[in-house]
């Protein structure tokens, strides 16, 4: 049961391995996955260390409910200090790795040091081995997984791997498992590369025990029914996250040509139904009844034959709207390339779109781009840029360092055009018409990001009494409004922190559907699976604790209120096109600042964004670091 789960400490420099049972106190305070990762991140790191030094710790944490038969229970949380932003590095990955790790008996791995030569970790039931990986170095993400399975003669091995981008210390290199599941954001693959760690392979046959197996099984079935009966999930099962595109593009909520337009005109080829031309079916993560991605095959053209999975809504923006490429095929090829090299799709697209705008403005020229014509819609330039970023070739080397360094290097007013927060690129969503979304990307502890807090149900214009019931206070129904939006963000931040900690999929909680499982259901699942009673209110407090310890980490690294901001263009340039709800909208600086005040207050943080002594005490954070694990 829950008390039996273990954590392993691996030092790649000294090759020392040790393990420990997870203390119950940590469970009840931080649950698992992201929560425990964040506790350890704050506890294990000395302030201001170089993220690429051996001191950085790579944390791999399976969710507390990993392995149960519902709601996409295959999620794994990966954390370290981010080499991209210098803030909290944290990324959540689906697929099949987390349950396999749990079948070994371990829930958490804490990896420090740096191996002398390339290595990979093999976690097999109770045993952990550091294995030689010279033969894997230079291999792409797919080959790496295949070779490990062949070497070990075991098709059931699941691995987290890096591609060449991670080896080359691209600041936003990701970690991949399977054909597309990635811990995409904040450069966790770069941290792996800096440790000479090519892969973490897991294989286990240890039974996962539950407190009430029969009741859990029945309740899981109800949970699957609950989620699959929502309209959002039905659409997602059919078209994946791409379904969001139809609505947002028509309305005018999508960044196009970096940030010049908010809708892709003649973007019909990117409509989700066009995936049917290439799809051979859908695919799901472990324990998922939603199955939100397509398995696609390119049978013709210069890039055929090619098999890939996805693409996500994110890639439609990263390789479509943001760079003004209007072909589904371009998206499919580019999506495959980033997965193969192991770079974050979103960061890559965001940087290339930015470079294209700089090129158009003359801030970049042919000499600086090695002759590459970074023109809107130039798909060949896109493929070459992706490849060059992953290999740190030519101008790709500049972009491979991410926004912060690239801005410093290019200078010349380039910063104004960068759509980033805390050094991390924003999604291709345009938040100028949606203050709640704008606040969320500004306050996210890991830099511009939609998965920390996005209250996507804000888009539905739900009745205000329903919103009040959900969010526990008054919230305006219109998404253009600023009223009550800090409350939405605050609520979602806590919910997502808990979702990432129990290890379920965010699409299967209140993300795009108000009728999805949330606090009450999570509390019941935890009770049936582990026997531990954690009430809804306690879960909310745990969410608060996790978010606050992330805040403490960032404050310690020198971040402050001034970093909870938006790119200047959000305040200056109104959206040029779109439906009336989206057109001619920009963020009001004063109202934004007021939202921030209100948001801090809800969290129990001062006006400077620093948690008050009372808040820390209430959350049991007043004695951190406490070094329990």
């Amino acid at each position: 049961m829950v008390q039996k789960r273990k954590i392993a400490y691996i030092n790649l420099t000294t090759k020392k391995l040790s393990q420990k049972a997870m203390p119950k106190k940590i469970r009840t305070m931080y649950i698992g996955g992201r929560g425990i990762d964040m506790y350890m991140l704050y506890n294990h790191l000395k302030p201001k260390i170089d993220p690429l030094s051996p001191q950085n710790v790579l944390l791999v944490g399976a969710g507390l409910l990993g392995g149960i038969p519902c709601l996409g229970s295959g999620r794994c949380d990966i954390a370290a200090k981010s080499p991209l932003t210098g803030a909290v590095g944290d990324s959540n990955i689906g697929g099949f790795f987390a349950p396999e790790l749990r079948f070994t008996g371990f829930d958490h791995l804490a990896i420090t040091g740096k191996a002398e030569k390339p290595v990979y970790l093999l976690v097999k039931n109770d045993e952990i081995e550091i294995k030689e990986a010279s033969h894997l170095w230079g291999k792409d993400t797919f080959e790496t997984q295949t070779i490990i399975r062949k070497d070990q003669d075991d098709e059931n091995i699941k691995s987290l791997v890096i591609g060449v981008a991670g080896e080359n210390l691209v600041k936003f290199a990701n970690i991949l498992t399977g054909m597309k599941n990635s811990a995409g954001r904040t450069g966790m693959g770069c941290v792996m590369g800096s440790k000479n760690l090519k892969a973490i392979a897991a294989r286990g046959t240890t039974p996962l025990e539950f407190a009430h197996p029969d009741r859990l099984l029945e309740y899981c079935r109800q949970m699957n029914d609950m989620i699959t009966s929502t309209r959002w999930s039905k659409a997602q099962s059919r078209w994946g996250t791409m379904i969001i595109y139809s609505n947002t593009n028509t309305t005018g909520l999508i960044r196009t040509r970096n940030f010049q337009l908010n809708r892709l005109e003649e973007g019909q080829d990117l409509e989700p139904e066009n995936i049917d031309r290439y799809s051979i079916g859908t695919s799901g993560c472990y324990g998922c009844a939603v199955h939100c991605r397509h398995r696609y095959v390119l049978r013709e053209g210069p890039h055929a034959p090619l098999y890939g999975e996805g693409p996500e809504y994110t890639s439609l923006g990263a390789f479509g709207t943001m760079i003004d490429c209007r072909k589904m095929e371009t998206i499919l090829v580019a999506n495959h390339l980033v997965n193969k090299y192991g770079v974050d799709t979103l960061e890559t697209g965001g940087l290339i779109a930015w470079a294209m705008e700089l090129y158009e403005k003359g801030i970049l020229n042919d000499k600086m781009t090695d002759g590459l014509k970074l023109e809107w819609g130039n798909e060949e330039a896109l493929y070459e840029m992706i490849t060059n970023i992953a290999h740190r070739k030519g101008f790709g080397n500049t972009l491979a360092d991410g926004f912060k360094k690239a801005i410093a290097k290019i200078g010349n007013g380039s910063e104004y055009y960068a759509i980033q927060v805390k050094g991390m690129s924003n999604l291709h969503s345009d938040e100028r018409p949606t203050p709640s979304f704008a606040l969320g990307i500004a306050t996210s502890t890991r830099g511009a990001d939609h998965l920390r807090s996005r209250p996507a149900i804000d888009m539905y214009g739900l009745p205000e009494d329903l919103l009040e019931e959900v969010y526990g206070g008054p919230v305006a129904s219109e998404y253009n409004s600023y009223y009550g939006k800090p409350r939405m963000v605050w609520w979602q931040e806590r919910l997502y922190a808990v979702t990432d900690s129990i290890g379920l999929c965010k699409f299967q909680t209140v993300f795009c559907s108000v009728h999805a499982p949330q606090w009450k259901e999570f509390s019941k699942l935890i009770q049936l699976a582990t026997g531990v009673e954690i009430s809804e209110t306690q879960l909310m407090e745990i969410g608060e604790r996790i978010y606050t310890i992330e805040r403490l980490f960032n404050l310690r690294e020198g971040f402050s209120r001034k970093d909870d901001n938006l790119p200047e263009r959000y305040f200056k340039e109104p959206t040029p096109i779109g439906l009336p709800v989206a057109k001619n909208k920009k963020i009001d600086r004063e109202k934004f600042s007021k939202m921030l005040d209100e948001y801090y207050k809800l969290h129990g943080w001062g006006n400077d964004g620093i948690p008050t002594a009372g808040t820390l005490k209430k959350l049991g954070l007043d004695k951190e670091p406490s070094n329990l694990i």
Partner: protein
Amino acid sequence: MQKMLAVDPEKCTGCRLCETSCSIYNEKTCTPEKARIRVTKWENEGIYIPMVCQQCDIPICESVCPMHAIKRDSNTQALVIDKELCVGCRLCMQFCPFGGIGVDDETKKIIKCDLCNGEPICVKFCQPMALQYVDANTLNTRKRRAAAKRFSDILKKMLATI
């Protein structure tokens, strides 16, 4: 007509809900290793094939078992193991052409699908209906129609181009 556990790999999304629910139902723990149904994958090509005992009409497992430990359940027609009689020789496993039989590493005895007394749990969990518990004749009618549809689509296309 007797119902059968029908597998349609084309619909399978590879989620392993079947394995997971099967093992919790039968073993009370989540141990896919002991699931009676397993999903075989070719991940790099996107092919997922759930494999489970076919409850054959002329079961090889039953005929090779020296202990007569495999018997047909009169109710569900499933071939079930009599754990008391099974000596764990694994002959059945070696002869089954579908990999429908597994071994429990702890007890060293055979495990196989027994159709959960006529209400297979995996079917209840398989959202895309890659697994169905249906009347064999109905299934065949459906398959025939699906195949005929493909044929008629081709014909229609041919006629249109003439």
